[in-house]
């Protein structure tokens, strides 16, 4: 399947300053929800701006949806973006703005109006649909901006810090809405909140100093398919486990059993889990907790 987004050796320097992007290269598979993570100044926002054509790269190639670099005229309605630092045109109401943007994406007026109505309900702004954007709170404006990115259901959507400034209930609701798009649209979500990325995304790209330092399925990057920790309420049946899992490293850390798979096959974690459970049941050892991998945050910090 054609990747939704590919960057190869993209570099960008602002004036005579340091490189904001330094041979940035990564691939986002179609239909995934990809996390785009990195510290401040890593180049996340610059990357999004280059992909959208707001900034011209000094070198390198950008391929959007397998059709080359983004050009507004030919990509009408195929790319949605939530820019992190762009203010909304605030003289209009959310419905007016979204209708206008929908029309610019090629929708007819009636269709664009219906899409605007759908989106304001999606981001829970139905009661402020006809209020000037200038009168909305920061969180509400953020939701209008998210709605603009989703307008017309583009196949590729870039969201730069979509949950920043939202209260917990709004963030939960929006995360649910974004998760529901899995498989239908490709979402690239930039965020500092790695827990949020881990919950929402199935693919992750880690960037640092303008370069991609790690990319792949979230489960693989965090080691969730390779490491599992079992908190037990009794003595560990170590010998039985080692016999049942000859291809794995089985260790005991206090009351915790740690199983490390040597391979990284997708089906393997389930086989490991079945074998461990069978041993525990046979030995009559109660299970008090289970965790997989090291967590995205740990992985990110380990890489520093």
């Amino acid at each position, binding site marked *: 399947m054609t990747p939704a987004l590919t960057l190869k050796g993209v570099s960008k320097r602002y004036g005579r300053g340091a490189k904001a992007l330094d041979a940035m290269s990564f691939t986002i598979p179609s239909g995934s929800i990809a996390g785009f993570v990195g510290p401040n100044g890593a180049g996340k926002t610059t990357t999004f701006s280059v992909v959208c054509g707001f900034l011209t790269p000094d070198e390198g190639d950008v391929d959007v949806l397998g059709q080359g670099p983004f050009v507004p005229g030919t990509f009408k309605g195929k790319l949605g973006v939530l*820019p992190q630092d762009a203010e*909304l045109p605030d003289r209009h109401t959310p419905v007016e703005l979204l209708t*206008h943007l929908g029309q610019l994406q090629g929708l007819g007026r009636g269709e664009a109006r219906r899409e605007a109505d759908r989106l304001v309900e999606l981001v829970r702004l139905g009661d402020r649909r006809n209020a000037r954007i200038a009168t909305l709170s920061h969180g509400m404006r953020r939701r209008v901006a998210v709605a603009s990115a989703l307008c017309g259901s583009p196949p590729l959507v870039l969201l730069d810090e979509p949950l920043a400034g939202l209260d917990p209930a709004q963030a939960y609701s929006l995360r649910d809405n974004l998760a529901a798009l899995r498989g239908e649209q490709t979402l690239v979500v930039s965020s500092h909140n790695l827990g949020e990325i881990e919950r929402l995304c199935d693919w992750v790209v880690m960037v640092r100093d303008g370069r991609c330092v790690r990319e792949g399925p979230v489960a693989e990057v965090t080691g969730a398919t390779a490491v599992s920790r079992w908190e037990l309420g009794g003595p560990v049946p170590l010998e039985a486990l080692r016999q049942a899992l000859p291809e794995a490293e089985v260790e005991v850390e206090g009351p915790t059993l740690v199983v490390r798979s040597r391979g990284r096959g997708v089906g393997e974690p389930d086989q490991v889990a079945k074998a461990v459970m069978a041993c525990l049941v046979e030995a009559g050892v109660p299970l008090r907790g289970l965790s997989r991998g090291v967590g995205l945050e740990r992985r990110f910090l380990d890489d520093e």
Partner: protein
Amino acid sequence: MRDVLLVAWFELFRAVRTWRAVALLVLYGVASAGAAYLFAEFVGLLEQAIADQLGVARTETPGAMMQDLLDSEQLLDVLSAMTGSSGVAEQLLDIPLPALFFLWLGFLLVPFFAASASAECIATDTRTRAIRFELLRTSRLELVLGRFVGQLLLTAVASATSAVVIWAVTLWAMTGVPPAPLAGWLAYYAVRTWFFAVPFVGVGVATSQLTTSSAWARVMAIGLTGGSWVAYGVARWMEEKERVPMLADLALQLLPQGWIRDMWSPGMGWLGSAVACSALGLAAVSLGYLRFHRRDL
């Protein structure tokens, strides 16, 4: 083309909801009202002078001696000064005087209004990056042309507002001016002032593409507009004195003011000037676009 019209319509709504544009519009309306009132007073003074010359009683309300005024040398002198040509002035005597004043005032004020209002149409959105929401969906060229057309629509609103204000003030302050013909002439001349404003809207849109500061864009636009009047004066002087006639002729072709004389034409001669002014406006926008289409936004 569809995108240009969509952006233009959205731009017009944005502009009329921006306090600066509304303030400029109101200011322009107030200036028109004040100028119309002063013009009526000026007509009254001319009529009093004519009454004194004829040895008849002075009239209270301006316009009461309109026919005598139209026959007078004083009025011809005034019109010659306004149009820059005594030949053209003689052809205009059948047209209601307030309409001629409106056209003269429009040539003088509309350029500054147009340049000032349009100077912020792109710069502000570039600074706040609000421009990105539209630029993701339409090309830079269509966006710039859309904003240009939107500002032209705003200028049309300003010209129409000025015409309505002058019509109302004239009917209130003067007598002997038939309302319907005056309204017709004002509407007709509003179109001419609008065409004359096109190059100055172009200048505003051009400067707006060069910077992210709307204040700086406005300073440049107003400076260039004022500078064009100075350059026009110099070119006319060079033409009269026959100094470097080729340069003077070229300047008069490239400056919007060089087309004013034809704009006064009572026939259809002004249409050529309208085309020239439109071309100058597009040329100005294009000069700004040379920078805008390459810059990082």
